[in-house]
């Protein structure tokens, strides 16, 4: 169960943002935007394993934890969870990202989707909402 799921393009522009609580969205967006810094830092220092797309915890505050994941094409996924939610282990987060990545890949395979457009796919939204609510 996550608070927010976001897809950020290669150019760091948001392509999809879904939050559990709309009132948190602005604050979370600030946090995700700042987290891009950490993604870039991690990408710059170079990963040891190119197959490892999961970047782990990028940023945390008293309330939120931002986790990152970056595809080989440098599309970034972010999942924000509640800091107090310690039930979510690393593995669960990885699983969320894997699902998100699969949905994103499906989206890219759709010939009617133009890469770079804001994501409005219902399927993708369904998957993202599933991650937010925790019933997927």
């Amino acid at each position: 169960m996550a608070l927010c799921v976001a897809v950020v393009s290669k150019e760091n522009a948001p392509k999809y943002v879904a939050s559990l609580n709309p009132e948190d969205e602005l604050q979370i967006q600030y946090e995700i935007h700042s987290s891009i810094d950490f993604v870039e830092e991690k990408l710059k220092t170079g990963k040891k394993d190119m197959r490892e797309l999961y970047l782990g915890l990028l940023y945390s505050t008293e309330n939120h934890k931002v986790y990152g994941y970056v595809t080989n094409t440098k599309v970034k996924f972010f999942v924000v969870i509640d800091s107090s939610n310690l039930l979510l282990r690393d593995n669960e987060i990885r699983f969320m990202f894997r699902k998100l990545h699969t949905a994103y890949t499906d989206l890219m395979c759709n010939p009617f989707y133009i890469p770079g457009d804001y994501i409005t796919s219902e399927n993708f939204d369904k998957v993202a909402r599933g991650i937010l609510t925790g019933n997927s």
Partner: protein
Amino acid sequence: MTTANPIGGDALRISDHKPLITYAGDKELFENLKLVLSQSLSQEPIEWRRQYARPMKMVTLSTEFVPFNKDAVAEQINSRNLVGRPIMHTFWTQCLDMEVYKSLLRDEIEKWMFEMNKHNIIDWVIVVVETYDLRKHNKLLPRTTVFDKIKSDFAEKKADRCLSVINPPKSEVRCGSSAWRALIANVRLLILSAFDRLFLKYEDNIRNYREQRNDPSWSFCKYFLYQEELAFALQMLGLHDEALVQYDELDAMFTQFILNSPVGNVPHWLTEFQGVLERWSAVLYMENISRTQREAIKNRKLSLLEFRCYLFSRQASLLMAASKPWQVAERALIFLHQAVSDLKTLEIDCPKGSVACWVLQCCAQILIICQTVKKSAHLEECSHHTAPLLYYSLKKLYELGELCGLLPDSVQTTEQLHTVQVLCSGMQSGHDLTAATESVATLKTALSSSETFSKHYLDVAELAISTYKHNKLMRCAHSLVGLELAKFYTLSGDTTKRTAFLVKALKLFEQDNWKLLIVQTNLELVKCFKKIGNVDQFVKTCLQLASSSECNIQVRQNHFDQMLSMIQESNVECFYPMDGVIVLDQIDVKSNDEDNYPSIVSLKFKSNLPRNVVCPKISISVVIGSAMKKMKNKFNLAKSTYSYDIKKDNVLPMAYNHNYQQDGHFASTGILCLNQKSYLKRQDSQRRKPSTNFNKNDFHDIISANSVTITPGINVIDLTLNNSKNMESGIYFLDKLSILLESRLELLTSVPFGLMFALKNVNSTARLDLSDNQCLFAGVEEMSILSLQFGTKSKKIIDKIQLHSTPGLTFCMKDDTEFCSEIYVKSPFSMSSNNSVSLPIKLFAQLPPLKDNPKTVHHKLWVKCETSLDDEEVICVSIDFSLPFTVAYRLHTCHYRKFVGVNITCHTDWSLALREPKIIGISQPPTNVMVKLTSLNSTFKPLTYLENGETIGYLWEIDLPSTDINTLGILADSLKFNFQTNYSSARKLDCSHDLNFEFTFNNYKTLMLIESGVEVAGKSGEFCRMNTVCTYTANFKRTEHPKSLQNEISFKYEIVVDKTMWAVCGRGSDVITFPANSITQSISVEVMPLMSGFLPIPTLNIFRYYPSNSRQNTESKMVPFSTGQVYNATKGVQTHVLPRVTTDASFI
């Protein structure tokens, strides 16, 4: 370094502790060996292979030897401490004498072993030190030694626990002997195995205790102290990471307990942590362990925060000992968040601000720790983790400031003053340690007054922002810290600084295109710009807000209205990129078919403005192709279009692709993307380009529309091209689009490259209007209409027109009758809608001399248009006149008689009327006699009509005085004739013109007569036969001119035959000479007809021949005769040739 350190007896210094080893037996001997032994043990690390496949560790043993004390041992064995407990017991002896052993030593060892067995100690070693007397060395070895005896008596089953060694100090040569090395190795191994056994046993105890955690009397604190012992012991062995693992396990366990507390029953021990928070001082790093604190843990006197601090301080000190200081910083943030979260989970009642104070102290201390790091690489690593800590403390500081009324805009109330006091006292109380006071002092100072608070806040912010920047985390620096600072400056009223931070953050958001954040920042910025009176930026930001879909409509309208009123109040001119305000959708250049320049440019765009706007002007600037070429190197006309759909880019141009086999059968089909390369190019790689600034000066040649209402959403607007008159002709590209929203607010954008139109600049032209295939004829009056088409650059008002022409062409206006070569036509002119003037005009071109048989006559007419402004424009019209008829003349000869023939051929498409012709002949000097001519024409009608292509011929005989050769000389050799007639168009007989045609005949007199014929040669018959040789004879007769008779004259002849008819067998050409007084000559040449039938006889070409004369040095030459000088009497005669005689015929 100002870390808190317990002092005196309170301090538990693990580093002071070493694994303890007791010694018994020959103490004097051991005292001597002790130093060497302990040095040897710690000389090199040893592998510690642990059970349960735990990772192997290298351990360097540094040990401490204490004399065996049976009371102390009993106490230590029973205690739970791992540190300060002897790990091994040794017994030393150097007795070599069996007797002594039996009498004394055995008892001693037995007593010692009794103690061992009593406490169940198995980690013991008996060492027999053999000191050899070198002098006695050659003495025979005893059968059994004391060592063997001890072995058999005490260590029957544990042979490795009985060791023998040669005393090294006494035999220094053998110091490094194998026996000594074996001893050391053995002792090391035994120590480690002792530890291993101890740890396993201890771990078992811990596990057992942990299993009882559901027991109500169970306490985590107790458990904590248990496991901590293990950590101590590991630390004592120098295994910092292993020790850290113990603490991490404890940490995780504690956290888990707290997490479980809301769902299950809260264990009793945990409730003790739930008391009201009374102290919030923080000590995060201690080199030594405070016994008091451990005691407090034991007695459950520590608060949650204190306990957490203790735990963290232990972790920190282990990390520092392992020289991983950055991990301290890294863990600190997690630790702080966890602690704060724990407080919430356990619902611990904390005084307001206390947690913030605690966090601030913690952060400050971590920073202090990081500052002490020496290695630059470590320092760099630390800075990555200190920045978030700084940001965290900044937020907490703000929280405190708000609580205590210390923020710049507020005044402290008494209540808030009291809060400050409470908070300060909470930081002081608690520990009796000389606490790390620097952080507390700083915080207290910060809380003391509004000014100091501001200073401290800004210091922290500055440090945070610069640390983030140092780590190149710009988003964090400007968006996180920057916005916090902007918030702070809002309160302090420093709008300039606030704006600066907001603008920096905005730039980042714009660069990454985070719309929601842009809007949010803009909403703040608008207030700033209004405050500092930056109209330009205010208007720009308002515009952005008004057109951003992320805002609700009220906010957008509100800002739009604010913007409009601001523009009206101020007099600043504003230019902005169109970007998100107006989004271009489609541009169509609709070009007029005739003129090729666009009458209309249709513009489709989406307005994101919240209200209707009446724009004073919408315009597009254009750039001529040549200028564009300079501007852009890539100039691809193929790409240029007349229409551009901005969205169309996404639609691929597809085409069917059918494949056929070689035999023409259909093989496969598919679809193909044309021009796929340009579409397969990655487009998302290009970053969004920031809009460039434009100058208003660019707008020279414009396509525009005035007073246009733009409604929110899609608009379609037609623009028209203005003043194309003043533009050069060429290809124009649409360049920039400007939308004037208000009189002083202009939006600009670039039109996508490649949109163009051609502007053909039409020059003024003039022409004569002629109906289809009509041509003008010279020599007659012609009616036409002079059409003047004024060009795109001409003035529309013309005062007068001057016409003038080349010589030979005269003209007049329709109503006039007088033809002249220059006239003025005065205004007014009836100028038609397409700028043209028609002038009916009459033209007359003189007939040119007809001798050269000209086909046409060229004339030019200049039209000069004059305006009142001394401006004139000259247009030239070329006019071609055809001739209405052609005249031909000819001299005819018959023997000596001469005839003059004149033919007139009509070329007009109307009938030509000719009057009776006259001819006058004059013999040229020296005689100048009128030649008498006899008309051979039938009687003339008064008018002869000729249609197009018809010819009329006239014939006169020259009346030579006589045919007598003597009189031939009367008339001169040159005769001049003048043929005169009168012609007119059949339609306008009254308007007739004279035709005078002069011509001359030279050397017309007949000089020679020729008669020729073909005869049968031999006796083959009367008729010529095919393929039979015949004789061609020609007789030449000179005119019997008395003068010429006296001369010898030569001629050259050539026989001309059709080679399909005749074959010339003899000489085809020759020179004949008329000797003096000889009149006739003849030749005969053999010829053979090649076909049968009536064949024209061969003809002759005659030339006058002048033979070469060596005296006069002239070469021979041939000169042709003039017309009429040679008369061929047999011209056109045919001869009958019979077919060949067949053999059959001859047979008959």
